[in-house]
């Protein structure tokens, strides 16, 4: 039996792991991937000490650090179920493994809001994608559409402009939103980029692969089609709290409610940290701090509940 299983390997989860291992807790980190949302980040400019670092580089630094401390990590693992195990702790089914732990830290972060229109799911991986940093280079000299005109959508369009021959931004709002004015200015000036405001997607069309996206504007019934090979979805994100929704209390936004001092959830023994919680600022440096808090609180909890 583990003392602590941490679910999620973004800044919150890996920071929790560093603290837990240094407290000599028998610790395991489980995750689908390593790095969380940051690996999608093109460039990170607000993490103290390493300005301008690429998301994927920062993830490697985190990974190197946890390796040095010999943290046991199982990534690429699908977590199927978490349940209470009498008074002893919790049981986790992950991949083909059946695991037991005395305490848990949930640090699963956020997941992308999916494009829920006809063809949206069907063409996932076949032209519909959620990761510009991964897939942008595959669309060299092709036409693509970005769904979403917020910060993430703008960043995606900016990355795509390096490869694609044409980039459309389908934006539900009447102008680009967010505070990243330097990127917005770049997008306005780039002839490759066309911003289509107050419109929303209705359908993704194609055969084996995406061939186009149908949209409608200003609430009108008339529909238009863009011929594109790729659809990059950037419609924001939702907390990845499904796994524990029957175990702990969530707020109306689906965020795990935690005690601000201890990071304990409504269920003793389960702690949570980072973007999946109701912590007010969804920032990497905040998540890392929250992860440390959760691990230290879990350590204290384990000592007093021997």
């Amino acid at each position, binding site marked *: 039996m583990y003392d602590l299983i941490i679910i999620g390997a973004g800044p919150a989860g890996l920071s929790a792991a560093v603290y837990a291992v240094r407290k000599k807790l028998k610790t395991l980190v489980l995750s689908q*991937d390593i790095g969380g949302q940051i690996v999608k980040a093109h460039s990170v400019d607000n993490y103290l000490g390493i300005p301008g670092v690429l998301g994927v580089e920062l993830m*490697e630094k985190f990974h190197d650090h946890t390796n040095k401390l010999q943290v046991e990590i199982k*990534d*690429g693992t699908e977590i199927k179920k978490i349940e209470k195990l009498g008074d002893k702790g919790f049981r986790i089914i992950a991949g083909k493994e059946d695991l037991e732990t005395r305490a848990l830290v949930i640090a699963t972060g956020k997941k992308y809001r999916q494009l829920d229109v006809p063809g949206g799911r069907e063409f996932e991986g076949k032209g519909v994608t959620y990761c510009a940093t*991964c*897939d942008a280079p595959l669309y060299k000299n092709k036409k693509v559409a970005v769904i979403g005109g917020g910060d993430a959508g703008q960043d995606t369009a900016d990355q795509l402009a390096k490869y694609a021959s044409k980039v459309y931004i389908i934006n539900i709002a009447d102008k680009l939103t967010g505070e990243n004015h330097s990127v917005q200015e770049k997008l306005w000036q780039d002839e490759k980029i066309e911003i289509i405001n107050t419109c929303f997607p209705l359908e993704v069309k194609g055969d084996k692969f995406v061939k186009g996206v149908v949209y409608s504007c200003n609430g009108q019934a008339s529909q238009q089609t863009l011929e594109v090979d790729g659809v990059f979805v950037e419609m924001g994100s939702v907390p990845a709290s499904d796994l524990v929704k029957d175990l702990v209390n969530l707020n109306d936004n689906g965020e795990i409610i935690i005690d601000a001092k201890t990071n304990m959830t409504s269920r003793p023994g389960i702690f949570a940290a980072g973007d999946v919680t109701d912590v007010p600022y969804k920032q990497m440096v905040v998540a890392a701090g929250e992860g440390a808090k959760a691990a230290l609180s879990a350590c204290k909890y384990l000592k007093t509940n021997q």
Partner: protein
Amino acid sequence: MIKVYSTPTCAYCVTLKKFLKEKNIEFEDVDVSQSETALQEMIDQSGQMGVPVVNIDGQIVMGFNRHKIMELLNIKE
């Protein structure tokens, strides 16, 4: 023969390759952002266009699926 189709900026690709190296598995790393032929080869084999894709002796694994890869390579934790 193991081939990994990847792009340099894709984090799942980085973790996947790191994992194979840790297990001392030799593989050919194909950067599909540099070659349209390689990209087409990946699309033909996997029927999709997301990276990473691993070809293990003709068996195709999409994404970093640790269990599937370990099973096909017959390796233990």
